[in-house]
């Protein structure tokens, strides 16, 4: 499955995932708590600079990742525009863009494998609580395997519907999709048990 990691190499790709996440936490906390417009705009400019350092094409890809904010920016602009409080509105948008932008930067420059390796490392102490530490990574792998499978099923069900009706299938696909998910779950649990279950420390990756 495609992840959001950028294929354009940047120096940030080489940094450790844990380092980047820690930096993101500190940065976001500082930006959120700060009420000083200069600090907020400085932070937003810093994030923009970090993107530009990765090249123009990389920065353009980063800009496209900001799309989910458009809706909220429009609302804030309208709201504060009516009230005439432009400075406050701009500050809210600046904070949002800085925090969201840097978080996207971490996502765009960290490979999925590295993220999952981090999950495995963080989960390791769970063994002391009697919880199987491979469980989180195994569950993640299972979902990643089955999202494309179910998407394909959804497409096939949609085609079968359209072959018989001129109307759009819409919500009518939900029941058969959920039914197939239930059947898959039974098969997967049988398969897991047949291979010795989750507990034994086998090295295979589900």
């Amino acid at each position, binding site marked *: 499955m495609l992840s959001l990691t950028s294929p354009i190499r940047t120096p940030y790709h080489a940094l450790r995932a844990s380092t980047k996440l820690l930096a993101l936490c500190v940065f976001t906390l500082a930006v959120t708590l700060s009420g000083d417009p200069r600090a907020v705009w400085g932070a937003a400019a810093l994030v923009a600079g970090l993107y530009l350092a990765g090249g123009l094409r990389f920065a353009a890809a980063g800009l496209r990742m900001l799309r*989910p904010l458009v809706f909220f920016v429009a609302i804030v602009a309208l709201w504060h525009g009516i009230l005439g409080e432009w400075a406050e509105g701009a500050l809210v948008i600046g904070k949002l863009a800085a925090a969201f932008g840097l978080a996207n930067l971490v996502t765009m420059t960290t490979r*999925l494998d590295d993220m999952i390796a981090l999950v495995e490392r963080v989960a390791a102490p769970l063994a002391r609580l009697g919880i199987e530490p491979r469980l989180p990574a*195994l569950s993640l792998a299972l*979902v990643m395997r*089955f999202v494309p499978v179910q998407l394909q099923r959804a497409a096939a069900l949609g085609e079968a519907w359209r072959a018989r009706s001129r109307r759009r299938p*819409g919500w009518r696909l*939900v029941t058969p999709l*959920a039914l197939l998910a*239930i059947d898959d779950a039974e098969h997967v649990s049988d398969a*897991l048990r047949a291979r010795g279950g989750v507990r034994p420390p086998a090295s295979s990756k589900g």
Partner: protein
Amino acid sequence: MERNLAYVALFAALIAVLGLIPKITLMSGVPITAQSLGIMLCGTVLGARRGALAVLLFLGLVALGLPLLAGGRGGIGVFFTPSVGYLIGWPIAAYATGWITERFGAGKPLALTAGIASVIGGIVVLYVPGIIGMAAMLDKTLPQASLLALPFIPGDLVKAVLAGLVTAALARARPGAVLSRS
């Protein structure tokens, strides 16, 4: 153990797929995706604990950088947008929906119980953190943020009704598989 894991994983995948298949357009013209229907189904079908775990697993994949939210969004960044309250509220909503379906179902039609549970869990319980999140991130008061949430209520009511109907259909087709009833 394996059965629980398999159900949790498959329903996490189902949430993703429901967000990615083409969206349903209501009569009012407001486009809605079926993703929040997936959250409700996790509760009504899997029950409180497994339902909440499935949602958490789905959010974990989103955080790791997979574009599984409706509209192909994803990455850690989505937890820094004004929608963050809804994301945090999702597992809570699935838990509440599942809890109600488990507790108050005996002797009543499943479609009704699951539908009402979806309204309470998937709308009432979900909107509390959702509205708080928007108020905090957009620097608004709670009543102002509530105003922003209003347009989404009709679509979510439709989804709650659908969640009830789908759950009942699933229970008819695979009686042993609706875990909130076992």
